[in-house]
């Protein structure tokens, strides 16, 4: 039996070096192949969860540049991934995450009006729309001067598809020096960069379409 992929290690990333499996992935034999990627039940969402620029509707807007990100989520047959959960998170305009882990290693300030995470559900065409603050860059390893460019984390979990990725911004000189960006094969790098789009309600907008391996299984209640 042929062996599967060998996962690449991100250079200069100690966690990647210590945690990435060294052996090729094992192939799933045909006799055990079935399409059952988790079918996560949708959690209830609160109003405004797709607007990360405010802690809640009516609250003050966070500092920095408000941006819109829109796109479609498609499965491997390019069919829309409908009513699936999309979770997004990112740093504030200063490049600081609200996560407690970032408190000890990042001098950049918190923004009292920005938590930097939100959720939404795609529509029947697989479309999503969110609003957030353009994240700042931040230093990942001071000793080697490794900066992470601005990026937004995306997680998609639905019936038959699962993907976690990061969206980068166009024309950012730091992209080409970022070891996590550089692990993406050169031919695929455009696929993780949001593309400029027509502004929405005065916000600079980016389009970010996502194509996921796997076949989305429409749940019976959506048929």
């Amino acid at each position, binding site marked *: 039996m042929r062996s599967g992929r060998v996962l690449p290690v991100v250079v200069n990333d100690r966690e990647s070096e210590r945690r990435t499996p060294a052996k090729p992935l094992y192939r799933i034999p045909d006799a*055990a192949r079935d399409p059952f990627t988790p079918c996560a039940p949708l959690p209830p969402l609160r109003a405004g969860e797709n607007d990360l620029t405010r802690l809640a509707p009516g609250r003050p807007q966070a500092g920095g540049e408000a941006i819109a990100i829109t796109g479609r989520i498609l499965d491997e047959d390019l069919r829309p991934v409908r009513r699936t959960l999309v979770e997004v998170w990112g740093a504030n305009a200063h490049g600081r995450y609200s996560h407690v882990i970032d408190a000890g290693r990042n001098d950049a300030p918190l923004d009292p009006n920005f938590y930097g995470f939100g959720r939404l559900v795609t529509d029947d065409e697989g479309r999503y729309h969110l609003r957030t603050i353009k994240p700042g860059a931040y230093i990942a390893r001071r000793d080697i001067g490794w900066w992470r460019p601005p990026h937004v984390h995306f997680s998609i979990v639905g019936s038959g598809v699962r993907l976690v990725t990061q969206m980068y911004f166009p024309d950012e000189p730091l992209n080409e020096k970022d070891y996590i960006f550089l692990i993406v094969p050169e031919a695929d790098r455009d696929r993780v960069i949001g593309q400029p789009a027509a502004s929405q309600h005065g916000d600079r907008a980016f389009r970010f379409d996502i194509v996921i391996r796997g076949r989305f299984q429409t749940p019976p209640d959506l048929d």
Partner: protein
Amino acid sequence: MPDGSVRRQFTPEATIGPFYPGAFLTDVPQDLWTVAPLVAHHPSGQPIVFVARFLDVLKRPVPSLVVEFWQANAHGRYRHPQDQSAAPLDPQFDGFARVRTSDDGVLRFMTIRPGAHPVNSGGGAIRAPHLRLTIFASGIDRLVTQVFFDDEPLNQSDPLLQSIADARVRDRLIARRRTESGEDDAIEYQLDIVLRGDDETPFFDDWTE
């Protein structure tokens, strides 16, 4: 896929990084014994606790690692639109949970023992009871594997487990039964999952051809 051009359309995967929001854990089930606090309904089946410790190449624990569990109910049925088996659904059991490791790299997953089930793509093979794990952590992209139970005779004929030729490697996917845990008569199973190293746990390639 017919050629490389289609393959290149896929959005590349990436790590969750160090800053995965805790809020994404609290709004998703973490304990499949109960449907909600103080509700008398419970899923059918034998309650179990799966205790997993995650280690890196230096055998140091991996904290804040996130596992998404997915499993059949006690009757061997998944709550998935493609599972058309005759086994019944359990109204109290969805089979999906998201659990994070603590600072010592350990998670405790309260669930019920899944049932055996036929392979859903046909062919007639029987899958031994198992948990499906999708693993995320800072430094790694999504990993998938499956975990079995050491007191289960069907392991001997499970097509996935037996596809691994080396018995020592197979053993790394088999959780060991410990004494009764004392919590609601649950049975406790334990397993170390080694992400990288000589005794690395087998992970699977679920990319479609």
